């Protein structure tokens, strides 16, 4: 009896260990609710908004040793001003240090830039839920049939996501300013 318990304990721990090591595998793609409910009518239209000549990142980074130290960037990417929980976050919290052309989730799994919404959804869960339902963000295309999505980062700069104020278009004319073709007040 005792032996029976022992052996089942060993098998159980082996199973747990195996499943943990498997889920920690970095190349595995994740299945979110979005993918399991994925409607073939939904497509992402816009590609990630990379700056010119910036992608693939590995073009420059393949010869650079990753530096994990949190620091101010001076000789590259110095145009990026991080205004996104900058006290607690830094480049390598989202960008992967070893595979420069990928992002990574908090648990280390790698993501393509085209799936960046999964990364955003780690902190902004309710927003991701609303986005998947079509409430947050903008859908274009067809109200019936193929709907087109924008990625989070197409509207929100991931390094500084708050919307910047815009210049409004001109105010409408007041009734007193309306004239007919002969210049006579209407």
């Amino acid at each position, binding site marked *: 009896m005792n032996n029976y318990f022992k052996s089942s304990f060993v098998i159980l721990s082996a199973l747990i260990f195996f499943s943990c090591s498997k889920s920690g595998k970095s190349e595995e793609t994740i299945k979110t609710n979005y993918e399991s409910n994925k409607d073939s009518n939904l497509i992402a239209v816009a590609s990630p908004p990379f700056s010119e000549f910036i992608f693939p990142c590995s073009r420059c980074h393949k010869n650079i040793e990753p530096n994990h130290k949190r620091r101010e960037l001076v000789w590259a990417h110095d145009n990026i001003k991080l205004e996104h929980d900058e006290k607690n976050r830094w480049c390598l919290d989202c960008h992967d240090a070893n595979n420069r052309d990928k992002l990574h989730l908090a648990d280390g799994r790698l993501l393509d830039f085209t799936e960046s919404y999964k990364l955003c959804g780690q902190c902004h869960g309710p927003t991701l839920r609303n986005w998947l*339902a079509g409430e947050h963000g903008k859908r274009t295309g067809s109200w019936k049939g193929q709907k087109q999505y924008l990625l989070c980062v197409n509207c929100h700069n991931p390094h500084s996501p708050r919307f910047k104020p815009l210049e409004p278009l001109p*105010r*409408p004319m007041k009734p007193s300013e309306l004239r007919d073709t002969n210049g006579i007040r209407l």
Partner: protein
Amino acid sequence: MKKNTDLTRREFIKGAAGIAGATVLASCGLSGDALEAFLQKHFKELSNDEKAEILKRIEDECKAKYGKEVAVVGTPAEEGVLFAYALDISRCIGCRRCVYGCCEENNQSRDPQIHWITVLEMDKSEGVNLEKANSYYEVDKVPQPDKFYFPVACQQCENPPCVKVCPVKATWKEPDGIVVVDYNWCIGCRCCITACPYGARHFNWAEPKIPTDELNPSMHYLGNRPRMKGCVEKCTFCIQRTRGEEKKYPKCVEVCPVGARKFGNLLDPSSEIRYILANKRVFIFKEELNTRPKFFYYYGL
């Protein structure tokens, strides 16, 4: 005593009225297409052949006036569709992109100016208070920190007061919920403008002017075909887009830079509009008037 004459009183009056009418029309210079347009039947009474003929006539008129090929359609409502709209007032920043996008899509007169969408600027401290609202705000940047913005267009009421008051039935609610106007049937009495509690109907006080290069050539009879002086017009949920083959979203939804505008089929449980009604704090503008709008305002944040 009753005399037996060849011409009854009724027949005489009929004949006289006919001759008088013809004289008036001739003296107005109405002939050919204009005369046909004047004598055309109500849109809902037209047979398919008559419709095709009228759409062709309007295409020709537009080509003659603007020197541009246009396509005018009369696509009917689709079964199982009831359009609805939702606008997130916690996101709208009052940039007026929708106002001008609508204007270009729907061939509104540029001079004198007609806008189907009015964006109201309101004080956050006041809430939705029309007495303190301002549609003529001029600022460098929007949103202003102490303001919120409240765009108003036709609410596509299920119980539309404008339709009730029209003395000639030139405006009606379509099966997909869009309230439309037959511009040719409208007599320009403006009763509907007075009846609408949302200020959503607009009158062509003068002959509308649209630059040829800005004319949108994809037109619907009940929507964005060029209007004439003396008729009333309003938002039609971009009927030429939403009923078109591609079932596009209205233009204002597409141009909104903050994604505050949502559109869909109220009868489709998976539409974003149903998600909003089920999950968000939704309110109806001037609910107490029992107009039952299919335009919902909500707070997404």
